[in-house]
């Protein structure tokens, strides 16, 4: 399969690989996928409680190049956004940016799912209601 240059770039130089303290009140964690399916993504956001902006984002992904690239791109996009803005990220934006072929659209769906799961985890810690995905 031919990968786009952007997928190769994110795969070769993944942005924001790492871990945030998942116990911290201002950190939200989203773990999605399953090993049997060949994709597991963990995406984390750290929110500045004064400004309401996402000041850091980290990921770790077990999956194909497109899955790694989708989550790497997601962390780039998350930084500097408000939580509400982050909620608006759509998987098709990721598909477009990375030029994912149809068989890899599920990677972008998984990334969107990881973002929303992380945001809801953060909201729960803040005593806010979960948002519908």
């Amino acid at each position, binding site marked *: 399969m031919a990968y786009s240059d952007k997928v190769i770039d994110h795969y070769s130089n993944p942005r924001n690989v790492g*871990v945030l303290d998942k116990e911290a009140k201002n950190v939200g964690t989203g*773990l*999605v*996928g399953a*090993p*049997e399916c*060949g994709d597991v993504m963990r995406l984390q956001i750290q929110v500045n409680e004064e400004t309401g902006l996402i000041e850091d984002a980290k990921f770790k*992904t077990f*999956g*194909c190049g497109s899955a790694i690239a989708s989550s790497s791109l997601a962390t780039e996009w998350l930084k500097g956004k408000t939580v509400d803005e982050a909620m608006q990220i759509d998987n098709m934006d990721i598909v477009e940016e990375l030029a994912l072929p149809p068989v890899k659209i599920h990677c972008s769906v998984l990334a969107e799912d990881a973002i929303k799961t992380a945001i809801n985890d953060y909201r729960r810690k803040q005593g806010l209601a979960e948002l519908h995905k």
Partner: protein
Amino acid sequence: MNIYLKALLYLHDRIDLNKNRMLQTPIYLDNNATTPMDPRVLEEMLPYFNRSFGNAASRNHSFGWTAEEAVDIARERVAKLINASPKEIIFTSGATESDNLAIKGVFEMYAAKGNHVITVTTEHKAVLDSCKHIEKNGGRVTYLSPDSQGMITLDQIREAITPETILITIMYGNNEIGVLQDIPAIGKLARENNILFHTDATQAVGKIPVDVEADHIDLMSFSAHKMYGPKGVGALYVRRRNPRVKVTAQMDGGGHERGMRSGTLNVPGIVGFGKSCEIAMNEMAEESKKLSAMRDRLERELLTMEEAYVNGNPEHRLPHVTNISFKFVEGEGLMMGVKDIAVSSGSACTSASLEPSYVLKSLGLDDDLAHSSLRFGLGRFTTDEEIDFAIDHVKTAVNKLREMSPLWEMFKDGIDLKSVEWQEH
């Protein structure tokens, strides 16, 4: 000049040459898929494309006689490598055709005797799909499951035999994991029960000694391009004595190849096949020693990584193959990471629904381990420098992906992955 000085200068030149030789990437380590043609084979073939272009079946002029003579020599060379007689060699387009001819041909020829065939779930698709074909036509097939190392026992075969059994077809060496079955014993068991024995020996012939007499083989498929010969030519060995075996032709026409396979002979291909058999005959012993030493080094080095496992029986194995699973990395991601070496993956994930190798699944491997496997196939032209490069390249890729893998992190933190509630999507 003093002979020692000469030798020293020679060695010095050799070392210098090696130093200056740039390593060309990607490095080819997929010799189970196909092999590069040996230059000696190509040289032997060339005149038969244009100068000696005759049809080996033309009886009335020297063009035909020259071609026929070349085919005769090749047939002798092919036969000699497997201890057969030249008349027992039926040239085909390759091992897939040979498998089809053997299985469908026996099924049709021996219909009056029975309709049952015994095979194994880890066979090549050419065998499995030929078996599926005869099932559609009233045949009955038993698919034996190997143990976790890919081995079949004689008892399994014995228990599967019925009065209707006409054929046992079990491969010599497996294409994905290199496992060698106990072919002489299986052949003997078949002979004792008056059942024909076919083996797909595509990966074994030319790599290890294969002897149709000692191994009690009645029919055997093999191919030139797996042993440094050209693509598009192979053979089916069909025993002529004790017992005399016949197969129904699957290709009708001019009655070539004793009526079992019609079609104008691929003279240049057959000449190349003959040459590659001759070279294998002379060089196999040395070559397999060299390759197994290289393979063992590659394997040893890669197994120094945690959670890396060899698939298949490590004792009964072809000398040039190893298949290794790297836990906690995903197969397609791994393939992308090892782009500077050409290897095969146990993962055939070209679509959203991942399909791990059916051979590895047959050994009972979990999907994730089957997905994250790599098959390394060394060959005649593989060098130590290339193995060094491959070791380094694979280690780097696996380590990098594990650093990125949440599963690896959980494993290192002592979390049992089976206890995690996954969000399947």
